[in-house]
């Protein structure tokens, strides 16, 4: 009897769960499963020589979007608000002026782009343009492309663009390739 008393008593493991819970809650709170998301852009390689003067791109195939330092838009010489930009860009890309794009639904205006392969969107901003506005404009242009691709995917395959396999997807991308140019900013007035 005396011997038994001298030995150390067993440690109570009942509070183990509480301790583990405490740690668990700490890690639950501090965990940030932040997946970084963003607008992907491919920049043009750096060249020292100035761009060639006689570029062969026709004026009507370029959709010029200007943003001034007050975050106002000038699209193809028209004042537009940001919520009109997406439709304007879609009309331009989908115009199909020379009729070489059977998938397009455009109005085939002679003053707008020949076909989506030739359509280029040129985004120019002032040095004073806010980053927020720039991202909004960029987002609308990307949105115009993804809406066109999605529409075509629905018509052709009956399902959304993101659910397509790689082969079908690249086929749609070849109908509506993305040509967005980000010009170096100039001071285009306040």
């Amino acid at each position, binding site marked *: 009897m005396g011997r038994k008393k001298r030995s150390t008593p067993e440690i109570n493991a009942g509070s183990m769960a509480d301790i583990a819970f405490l740690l*668990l809650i700490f890690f639950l709170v501090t965990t940030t499963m932040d997946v970084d998301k963003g607008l992907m852009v491919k920049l043009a390689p750096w060249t020292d020589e100035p761009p060639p003067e006689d570029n062969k791109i026709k004026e009507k195939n370029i959709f010029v979007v200007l943003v001034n330092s007050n975050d106002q838009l000038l699209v193809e010489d028209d004042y537009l608000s940001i919520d009109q930009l997406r439709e304007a860009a879609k009309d331009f890309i989908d115009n199909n002026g020379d009729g070489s794009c059977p998938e397009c639904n455009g109005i085939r205006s002679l003053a707008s782009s020949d076909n989506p392969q030739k359509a280029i969107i040129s985004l120019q901003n002032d040095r004073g343009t806010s980053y927020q506005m720039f991202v909004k404009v960029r987002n609308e242009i990307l949105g115009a492309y993804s809406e066109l691709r999605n529409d075509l995917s629905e018509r052709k395959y009956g399902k959304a663009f993101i659910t397509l396999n790689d082969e079908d997807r690249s086929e749609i991308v070849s109908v509506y390739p993305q040509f967005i140019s980000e010009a170096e900013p100039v001071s285009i007035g306040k």
Partner: protein
Amino acid sequence: MALIRKKKSKETPPVSTASLPDIVFMLLFFFMVTTTMREVTLLVRLKKPKATEMQKLDRKDLTTYIYMGAPKNPELYGSEPRIQLDDQLGSIGDIQSFVILKREEINEAERPKFTVSIKADIDVKMGLISDLKQELRKAQALKISYSTNPAASPEELYKTY
């Protein structure tokens, strides 16, 4: 005596909680492994713009982050937006060497997938961002991503604040 014994056998036995610590530990290890502690302390104020058309950056090890915004400590660094490279504020001239150094760290086969994620504050002017873009072009870091937060709908972006 016999009566009491009968009563006891009818009762449902209590649920054993002996395995509870094991379950909790399992969860604990899961969160410990997935937790990523913030690796840099932000020296600039950063409120990312919202967008709807973003793509996920899936390879963190191939991505380098560049932060831009007004310094949190204006007495020390002024109130003009600055560029943060890793743990210190840098200038436009530091970017090329920073990006090239970061690219050297990843193995050669995966270098074409090297991406620079620009985490800029909504109030930064495009002049600074354009300077940054020019430097990235010179450093041949052509894949970039404008880091954004998700917006619920495009209409949310049309509102002016």
